[in-house]
């Protein structure tokens, strides 16, 4: 039996075919170039354009940079990043004072504000410092590991006394000769460039150390050994140490330097020469006249 109510009419079947425009749109979306544009170019352009429009206003730019600065300061001043002390290792007290003076840091300071390479450069510029390493240690300590230059000779110049290390770097002024009595003395222009050679010469002159006053650089090319009693040993440019060794050997054998001579000239290695003092010459004259019997009287 059929029901009397009108059966529900099914909706007219939907046409499965896409409309012309839907079809075209779908084809457009399947075009590789268009897809690339849609996926990459358009978002990029939108973001870039938005940013451009937003930042075209001066106030917004300033607000942003202010906010960034605030944020940076907030992070930088956190206790984890603060440096509250400076520790200097391997430097003498005077040098440490110098370092503290030239850096003139006021602690606490944020480690972000410390320019470690600049600090290292400034510290290394100090004459008495050979090398310095700078780092921020855990616990907020600025650690400076210093290797100091150790002066080995006193250098006398027209300006005064200075201290020089083996590499020829001037480490600082000397207060007086007596303050550094244990260091040998050198003098003359360009002497600081040949400190190692000078040290070798001092070592070679050890047997006559009580007689040696110092070394003088002559003409920026060779050394003179200045002895007490106004004696000098003139050394050659090449083989100065060997020449001095010979003089020392001669001295120990024949007591050369005890005699009345003023200069031992070793400049010509083949022909060592000695120069008598004025008194000795006169003596020698007199003696030779006596010997020859020609006193003239």
């Amino acid at each position, binding site marked *: 039996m059929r029901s009397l109510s009108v059966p529900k009419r099914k909706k007219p079947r939907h*046409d*499965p*075919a*896409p409309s*012309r425009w839907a079809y075209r749109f*779908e*084809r*457009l979306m*399947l075009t*590789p170039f268009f897809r690339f544009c849609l996926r990459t170019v358009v978002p990029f352009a939108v973001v870039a354009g938005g940013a451009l429009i937003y930042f075209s206003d001066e106030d917004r730019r300033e607000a942003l940079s202010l906010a960034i600065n605030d944020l940076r300061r907030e992070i930088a001043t956190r206790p984890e990043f603060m440096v509250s002390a400076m520790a200097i290792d391997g430097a003498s007290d005077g040098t440490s004072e110098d370092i503290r003076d030239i850096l003139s840091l006021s602690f606490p300071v944020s480690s972000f504000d410390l320019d470690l390479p600049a600090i290292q450069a400034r510290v290394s510029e100090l004459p008495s410092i050979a090398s310095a390493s700078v780092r921020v240690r855990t616990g907020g300590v600025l650690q400076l590991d210093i290797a100091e230059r150790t002066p080995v000779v006193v250098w006398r110049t027209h300006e005064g006394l200075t201290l020089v290390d083996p590499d020829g770097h001037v480490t600082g002024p000397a207060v007086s000769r007596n303050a550094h009595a244990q260091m040998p003395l050198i003098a003359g222009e360009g002497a600081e460039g040949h400190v190692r050679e000078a040290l070798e010469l001092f070592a070679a002159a050890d047997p006559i150390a009580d007689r040696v006053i110092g070394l003088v650089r002559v003409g920026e090319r060779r050394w003179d050994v200045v002895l007490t009693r106004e004696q000098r040993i003139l050394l050659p440019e090449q083989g100065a140490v060997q020449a001095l060794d010979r003089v020392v050997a001669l001295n120990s054998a024949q007591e050369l330097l005890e005699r009345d001579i003023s200069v031992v000239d070793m400049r010509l290695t083949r022909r060592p020469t000695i120069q008598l003092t004025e008194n000795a010459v006169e003596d020698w004259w007199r003696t030779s006249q006596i010997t020859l019997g020609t006193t003239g009287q």
Partner: protein
Amino acid sequence: MTELYQSQRAMRAMRKAAMQRGVIAVLDVGTSKIACLVLRFDGTDRLASVEGIGSMAGQSGFRVIGANTIMSRGVKFGEIDTMQETERAIRTVVQAAQKMAKIRVDHVIACFSGAEPRSYGLDGQIDVHGQMVGEQDVARVLAACDVPDYGADREVLHAQPVNFALDHRSGLNDPRGQVGQVLTTDMHMLTVDKAAVQNLVHCIKRCDLELAGIASSAYVSGLSALVEDEQELGAACIDMGGGATSLSIFMKKHMIFADTVRMGGDHVTGDISMGLQVPMATAERIKTFYGGVVATGMDDRDMIELSGDTGDWEHDRRTVSRAELIGIMRPRVEEILEEVRARLDVAGFEHLPSQQIVLTGGGSQIPGLDGLASKILGQQVRLGRPMRVHGLPQAATGPGFAATVGMCLFATHPQDEWWDFDLPVDRYHSRTIGRAVRWFRENW
């Protein structure tokens, strides 16, 4: 003839462009379904250079990346009947296929079965210039074929040189470089109704697609359903479609005859619908589920319920036996096959050395059809399925897709057609200025 050259060459150029771009679609516009495959070319086939390995019938160079089939709309007897409906159907199927392929296709190769194809055998003969046969000689002999008056309302779909003969030697595939005096060629030309082609072209153009080739479905289903030695020795491919049954005869790997019987599976359905007084949809369902052509004693007891919603209980609760159904289907199938037989006889199929007949198409799936066909057509009948191609979905491997798959082969490895050869020199330069003037007049 020159216009034909122009349009076909333009389509060839289009296909070349599509192959360079790497994507092309094939479209089989049938009466019961429209199928679209999207092919991607993988460049040159890698195996071709290896010695001893063939090009796998042109399959290694392409892959099916998108496929879709929908019910056809607006097509009757393999010809477009309602343009808007067909255009919508093409739009639907192309959109779905390119959605599956995830790429847009611009070039399409289409085939259809109807439009009354007619085969012509042409022959031409020339004296060879000089000693050897050159490109120009081939062009001249093709141009020398005397084209029959096939009518103003018809268009040439295929024109393939089937055979070349040089002096007394026949059966040459490529006469170039050979020495001889008289060059003869046999050509097979297939013409179809111009209006049908134009309708199809218009539909495809309305879908924003470029037509890169057009083929007869008789030809392309033969390409895919016949195996290689059948094509070589001679065989007929019978593609039983929905609205038309197309047949093509192959010999020496060339199609030498094609024709269409304007009857198909839809007529069987129509008979069932009329005979059992059921709607077409029900009739189609009954046909596909219970259909057959050979009745046995069991079929008398096999009752089929015919549902309906007329509201008349008696009418809605009818049953028929399967034997009755077979009794309705068999005469129509016999009629189709006899018509095919008549066409084959006209073509002189019995004179071929091999009389292999391959049944394919959706209609060939009727159970018992091979037995019936062997009674009518001859002893050597087999049911053919299209060959397998890369990436083809399982749903599209049935015999109903023989033409679709054949289109893939046609797209990738086309056989030489008339318009692939050069025009003879003397025609090429004649009236160039006149052509230019006409072109200006047409376009401005």
